[in-house]
């Protein structure tokens, strides 16, 4: 229930982010016992690279606290869509915070917005939509994969978000977003292999007063076809972009500074010995600097945005 609003202490049933290091964190459920494969109820012990955690011990602890592991320690953080995106069980390729942030901004999602999303996938983006539109808006999210839709529905319930979201198992390319949703949406997001097939349905589902559209596609051809369809139906402000985030790794670099002046004077018995030379010409300077990691994300997808203007006859 830890996704609804900021809270201070861990309650039983909360999803908690166990933060070990910048590259290692886990989402765990704060329940004292679990049922093992044999059907026995046993203490919930979570294993990490720094040893085990008796999960019961964190219930009632303040978020942001340090908790002891058998071979070290970790921090317990309240989950949010950013941390969840980094720890969630991947059921599909997911979209990450830089693209998601642009999607929310361009779709102008704010409390009260009605948003349609397809597909639900691993629910990473759904959590962002829900944070942005609750408590007065609603998310309708569609997936053609039944198990994924079921899992997502379960997850939203456990996360305390059920009342703001409806999960559908449905092939929207062929069947559309159901007639109940005609003219209800402020914004529509598509992450589909053939977004162009769903554009006419998006057109119908957007409000008569207009709305915003986004499609995320890994390949340029998908965007090309999608844009053709958008243009045909009278969408405007069509634009496509890529957002790529770079990490800047902060470090202190020690750089040797050498002196070459001493070479100008000939070596005589009066001049310093080589060892003294070295001392003189071997210094170093420290620099606070940063560089990108050797490998960066070079492409996530093309984001295509468009506006359906108000009062277009459907």
């Amino acid at each position: 229930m830890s996704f609804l609003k900021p809270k201070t202490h861990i309650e039983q049933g909360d999803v908690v982010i166990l933060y070990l290091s910048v590259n290692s964190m886990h989402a765990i459920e704060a329940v004292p016992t679990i049922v093992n494969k044999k059907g026995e109820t046993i203490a919930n012990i979570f294993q990490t690279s720094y040893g085990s955690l008796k999960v019961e011990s964190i219930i009632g602890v303040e978020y942001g606290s340090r908790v002891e592991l058998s071979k070290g320690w970790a921090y317990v953080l309240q989950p949010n869509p950013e941390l969840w995106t980094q720890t969630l069980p991947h059921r599909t390729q997911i979209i990450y915070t830089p693209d998601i942030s642009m999607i929310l901004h361009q779709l102008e999602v704010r409390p009260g917005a009605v948003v349609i999303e397809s597909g639900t996938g691993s629910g990473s983006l759904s959590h962002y939509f829900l944070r942005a539109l609750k408590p007065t808006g609603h998310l309708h999210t569609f997936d053609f994969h039944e198990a994924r839709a079921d899992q997502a529905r379960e997850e939203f319930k456990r996360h305390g978000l059920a009342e703001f979201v409806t999960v559908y198992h449905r092939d929207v390319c062929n069947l559309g977003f159901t007639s109940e949703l005609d003219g209800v949406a402020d914004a529509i997001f598509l992450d589909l292999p053939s977004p162009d097939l769903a554009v006419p349905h998006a057109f119908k589902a957007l409000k008569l007063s207009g709305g915003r559209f986004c499609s995320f596609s890994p390949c340029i051809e998908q965007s090309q076809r999608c844009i053709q369809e958008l243009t045909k139906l009278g969408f405007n402000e069509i634009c496509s972009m890529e957002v790529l985030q770079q990490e800047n790794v902060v470090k202190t670099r020690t750089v040797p500074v050498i002196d070459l002046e001493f070479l100008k004077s000939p070596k005589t018995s009066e001049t310093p010995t080589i060892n003294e030379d070295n001392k003189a010409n071997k210094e170093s300077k420290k620099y606070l600097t940063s560089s990108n990691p050797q490998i960066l994300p070079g492409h996530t997808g093309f984001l295509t945005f468009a506006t359906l203007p108000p009062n277009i006859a459907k």
Partner: protein
Amino acid sequence: MTALTTPNIQLGDYIVIQRQKYTKLQKFGSLDTTATLGKETLELKSLLDHPYGSTFKMCVKETKAGKRGAQRQHTLELCSETELGSTRENLGISSSGADNRDICDNGEAQALKSSDIEQLREACNESSKIIEKLVENSKTFHNRTEYSQEKYLLKKEKKYFEFVQIRQPTIRLMADIFYRQDADKVMGIRVDTLSQIISYSGVCGFGNYLLYESGTNGLLPAAMINAIGADTEGTLVHMHPGNVAQKQALLALKLPFEQQQRCISVNLYSVLREFYQNGTAAVDAVEASPKEEVNEPETDQPDTSTDEQSETTEPSTKKPKLDGETQSNPRTPPRWQLENKRAASLMHAKFDSLVMSAKEHPSSILQALIPLIRPSRPIVIFSTCKELLLETYMELKSTAKVTNLHLTSNWLRMYQILPNRTHPEVNMSGNSGYLLTGYTLQ
């Protein structure tokens, strides 16, 4: 959001005027208000009560000789959907040469003289007509490649396009306008970075949020209070170093009163004094000479902020707002003192995240504000100067008060996606600025 009908344009509204890809934020203060788009001056009075999203035709009323060519004054006429449509389609241009081999750019390609064109412009008021004439009289147009024809038409269309659309300001539209007009006006916060500030800060309909910014024309507080939403329980304390907060973007959003009230704008120095000293000196502070307190922020503020203040387009609401209140109600505390008190009580209760965009070195401000943030909460610090964030990163790292530190920046590339002419746009924005993010610890 919930209204199914689009609202109408009202006097006092900020409006976004769009002409092709150019957009401008304008206050529609009175029926006499005019807006200037390059060489065109538009009389806005006929916009009144029309729904947002409407398109108007620019009708030349008079032409004055200006320094850089003719300056035209236009009235606006609501236009029908059928009047719109791509100029290219209207002209029905199709035959394009395969390449440019036979084009000599000797300046003699256009048979019309510039005086002819000016005359044409007076005579026929439709851009498509003008462009049609230009095309007819161009000796090289039909020999150009389609790519080259397109470029030619776009250039001409841009010059002669005579429609404007009036739109309701949103964070999205304003972020574009401010950054395009002068990125410094929003401290260099580009759209991708702005969107990530909202994500990383976690600002939403629940919780209390703290923002320090030294001048973004109100864009950052507007984006945050927009994310907090109407009819929710979230609150924003917005600290600034100046005498009066820059609020243009906030005012332009035309938020419901209850939502506006949940954005508490206070001066950094003055509210910190209130906060540190309110146990013992609460009454004193209120009784203290208002003049001195009011002036304090002004003298405290760093050099640059004075310039910043003068950039706001709301001069009428500036000084009078403070002076007026203190003068007319000498016995009730001035509004800024009440806001300081509201902010201080939220500061004692602590916040659910911290956003900073400082012209000053973020370090000392961060030291003062981090104790006001609850544990397990995000902090997001923006700067265009990486070196400042490198130092701040190291400081935070050494105090171990904040974890999961990341220093990030972004590339943003726009694409032209057209049949057979798909490529990234030839120009891109060079600076996204830098974000330092992390989570507070207990």
